[in-house]
């Protein structure tokens, strides 16, 4: 059931805090990538946009969500635990022996459709699923999240062209546009320039939103998933990599930066105040 705006905002704060705490337990898990998509994932999972059954992860009617930017995965762990895909006690064992919660999520985690530690695969696989669902006459949809750095991969553009050619109107792409890849700002590496213009030219229906402000994000998602256009749709969510941690927010190298436990505790206190 969808939550109210204030409930969702509280959820997002809680997910951000838990994501930071997970990073404290597993410093190898990338934190900055997982902080940029907290609100988008929270809106998606708690805003009533995804049909799902946490107790039956292979339910035919479920919407398929593929987190193609696998490095931003640890923020999904507290959401899946909270919704009952697996027991919350698993979170404390992240990256430990016998845990299924890795630094980068695999398809062995209940609620994960695919393995996506390697970038550029999710959208093409999503295209295959979208074709399959149409063939089955299913009403389920496919939602894929990529990072903007991931859009450097040529395979993503093969899939972008394929999706519009086949009018995959049951396929939704969310771009976590945090503007940074590993070594620099994306625009200094390979400048995507107007992503909106590019996606439009490639035959996609383009939606956009601030990716952190729930007041804007929730209506944008409502519009996205209510859009009846007979073409694939994209939501470009403008986000900040390392959101909530000022040191990371302004660091072009934040993808590979870790936080120590004291820093995490300090940031958590600030977020809670």
């Amino acid at each position, binding site marked *: 059931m969808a939550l109210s705006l204030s409930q969702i905002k509280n959820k997002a704060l809680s997910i951000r805090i838990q994501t930071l705490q997970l990073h404290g337990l597993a410093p190898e898990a990338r934190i900055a990538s997982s902080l940029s998509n907290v609100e988008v994932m929270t809106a998606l999972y708690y805003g009533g946009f995804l049909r799902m059954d946490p107790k039956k992860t292979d339910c035919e009617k479920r919407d398929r969500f593929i987190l193609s930017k696998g490095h931003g995965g640890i923020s999904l762990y507290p959401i899946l635990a909270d919704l009952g895909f697996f027991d919350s006690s698993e979170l404390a064992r992240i990256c430990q022996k016998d845990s299924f919660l890795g630094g980068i999520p*695999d*398809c*062995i985690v209940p609620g994960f*459709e*695919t*393995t996506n*530690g*390697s970038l*550029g*695969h999710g*959208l*093409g*696989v*999503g*295209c*295959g*699923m*979208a*074709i*399959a*669902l149409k*063939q*089955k006459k299913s009403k389920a949809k496919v939602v894929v999240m990529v990072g903007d750095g991931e859009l450097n991969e*040529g*395979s993503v553009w*093969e*899939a972008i*062209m*394929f999706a519009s050619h*086949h009018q995959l109107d049951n396929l939704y792409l969310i771009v976590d546009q945090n503007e940074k890849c590993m070594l620099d700002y994306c625009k200094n590496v390979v400048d995507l320039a107007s992503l909106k213009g590019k996606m439009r030219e490639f035959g996609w229906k383009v939606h956009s939103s601030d990716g952190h402000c729930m007041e804007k994000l929730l209506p944008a998602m409502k519009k996205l998933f209510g859009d009846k256009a007979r073409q694939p749709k994209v939501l470009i969510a403008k986000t900040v990599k390392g959101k909530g941690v000022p040191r990371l927010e302004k660091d072009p190298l934040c993808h590979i930066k870790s936080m120590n436990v004291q820093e995490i505790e300090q940031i958590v206190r600030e977020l809670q105040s």
Partner: protein
Amino acid sequence: MTKMMRDVIIERIIDEMGRNKRVFFLAADFGAPSLDRLRESFKDRFINVGIAEQNLINVATGLGLEGFTVFAYAIAPFLTMRAFEQIRVNLSLHAQVRELNVNLVGVGAGLSYEVSGPTHHSLEDLSLMRLLPNFSVLSPCDTVSALSCVDYAIKNKGPKYIRLDGKPLEAVYSDKCLPDMDKGFREVRKGKKVCLVATGYTTHTALSVANNASSPVGIVDIVRLKPLDEAGLFKVLSKYEHVVTLEEGFIGGGGLDTLVSGILTDRASGIHLKRVGFNNKFIFELGPRAYLHSLVGLDEPSVSRMVAKLNCHNKK
């Protein structure tokens, strides 16, 4: 006229698609005369993804994860090498956790496309695909074994690579002598001292060698390199003094020679092994396939000379 393996395979898939609505056929803008009928008959389950092998594998994966049996069809080197990481992550890796039936059909084994140059040669594919966990690797040598491979692919789940020659090849098998899909190999000729182990096109080279030899030469045709009844193959090979592997692929890099060498070494066998194939060098030369094979001693006369020597050679 002898049919191409790809055409008999596609005709069998057309039959299957007529019976079973949960079969898709994807192509990376690569055709065949038989494919025209498939395209016409199953417009909703045939997809040409375009010249985009990475997306071919990714779309095939999505369909496979949703429970469809998928055939993904392209030129062998581009299918296996352009999209190797897609194959690794999306097929090989997922197959360990999820059920899927995705079959990669690559045309142009070895030097089938002899005048198209090294980009179109496929000398690495068997090694690469054999390397991947959860994968089956099939390499038929004629239309009968090609049909056995496609039937095997339909019946058995998992990701598979089916390597097809780009040229029509004479019959090795018949209805009376089918390939052994339980074991993955068949001793198609029994010999005395020397056994040739071959797959695909080189099985035909082996047959020519055996036909010209003064004493009986054994031939084992490997129709499925993985999984393979290794103990069963060893039992056959252990009757011989010399084993010669013949492959249209790079040797010493994980292909047929490595497979046979491992089987012999693991069992501390004293059987002498000779490996014939391509050595760490691309082939820019042009000419008939037999000529290109002669550059590395893989042609019939060269192998016949080697076998004659081995037949005279007494093992110490």
